[in-house]
């Protein structure tokens, strides 16, 4: 589905990712783990196109998308939930969702589906997103991404700031969506247990390099924790 090949990414003069390579299997989940500042978010930003790699390539289903603008990648089936509960603060919850559904075939149904996943949002449709609580905004962000009916979903710590019962739902949703087929996920998670359970493959990122990788599943937990504890 997604092949990342030796990308080097940075900000200004500083280099954050030093040749990272990674694959997301079709209809599967790849999880990226690592300490604060390891470069996980940077990796996702490069994949969606907010940052341009200086070297290396990003391929989606074999097509080289390294030079495409973010909206072109979205048009090719990528969706991205950034870290930090981002929203369009002055648009209402409804507008935040409508914005993405605009001009999209089946947008209306996709919106309804997303709302079914996060029923709490239904009561907040008229409230501006900037006034929502952190967790409400995060739910909105995930819903927004799902409306595009992506083939590849990039999730940056999607459960951060969300109440435990909803976390469990989100986790189940991700598992269900991938299980249904047609969706691959690149997941950045601190919740090692969940990440490994969902993931076919995990990658541990340290200082902008992949220091450890392997097949997912609960069995990998010891290895991952060891890698993270270095």
């Amino acid at each position, binding site marked *: 589905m997604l092949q990342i090949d030796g990308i080097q990414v940075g900000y200004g003069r*500083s280099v954050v990712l030093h040749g990272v390579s990674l694959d997301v299997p079709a209809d599967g989940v790849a999880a990226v*783990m*690592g*300490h*604060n*500042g*390891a470069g996980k*978010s940077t990796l996702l930003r490069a994949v969606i196109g907010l940052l341009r790699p200086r070297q290396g390539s990003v391929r989606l289903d074999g097509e080289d998308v390294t030079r495409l603008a973010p909206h072109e990648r979205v048009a090719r089936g990528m969706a991205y939930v950034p*870290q*930090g*509960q981002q929203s369009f603060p002055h648009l209402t919850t409804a507008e935040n969702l409508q914005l993405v559904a605009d001009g999209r075939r089946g947008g209306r149904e996709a919106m309804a589906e997303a709302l079914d996943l996060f029923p*709490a949002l239904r009561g*907040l449709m008229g409230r501006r997103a900037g*006034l*929502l*609580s*952190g*967790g*409400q905004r*995060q*739910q909105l962000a995930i819903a927004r991404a799902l409306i595009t009916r992506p083939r590849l979903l990039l999730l940056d*710590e999607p459960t*951060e*700031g*969300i*109440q*435990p*019962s*909803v*976390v*469990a*739902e989100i*986790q*189940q949703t991700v598992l269900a969506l991938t299980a249904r087929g047609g969706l691959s996920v690149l997941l950045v998670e*601190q*919740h*090692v*247990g*969940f990440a490994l*359970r969902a993931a076919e493959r995990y990658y541990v990122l340290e200082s902008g390099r992949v220091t450890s990788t392997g097949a997912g599943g*609960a069995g990998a*937990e010891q290895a991952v*924790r060891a890698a*993270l*504890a270095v």
Partner: protein
Amino acid sequence: MTDTTTDGLRVRDLRVVFDGFAAVDGVDLTVPSGDIRFLIGPNGAGKTTLVDAVTGLVRASGSASFAGRELLGRPVHRIARMGIGRTFQTATVFEELSVLQNLDIAAGAGRGPLTMLRRRSSVPENVAEALETIGLADRRDQPAGTLAHGQKQWLEIGMLLVQDVRLLLLDEPVAGMSHEERDATGELLGVVGRGRTIVVIEHDMDFMRAYARSVTVLHGGKVLSEGTVAQVQADPRVQAVYLGEATTDDRAGDGAAAGAAGAAAKEA
């Protein structure tokens, strides 16, 4: 650590209303000095708004006092000078300034004009201590904007330390932190908490279990439940609105992996 009630945070019938919607709807809360109180509750329960009200960011009715002094109605900076500090759900530090400068500014609200107009000739003792405590001593000259997410959050806590606040209000301090970092932060809370009053908003139940001394659960702007970790966890209403079926470790997801995760949590 002295007496309780008058020394700590005392909130009575606190109400915050936005355009007819009561985000905080008559909350009573007493956090004695020396306590580490966790504030939990569903998304949108009013936790952040409560802290906003106590720190002067939003207008509220009712009463909130610390060490016997009323807080409501005062401007933000005055409340801060009364020894009340907070962090934000998304870390905010002065990105252009170095770690040291960030701390030095935080330490300096009480400085007189003469000191302000002079150059910093040496690192103040409390700043140096805080640098050590938060583990950023070797990054003290680095612009804070280049720190990673978690480091920024520590820096914020460090800023509260040098401010010498008596009441710390931390809004999801470990969100986005890795396992180990969470533990380190928890330890930090223990260190910082000596002689201070701490209120932590969190959704990380492991973290709560490990470091909370007492817990208050908010729901729909009201206090739903209050007590020890065990009491609160056992409260069926809390399970219904907040914890869900997974009454144990959320970080491992559902019950299937709970055991493993619990073990992992202890191991770190």
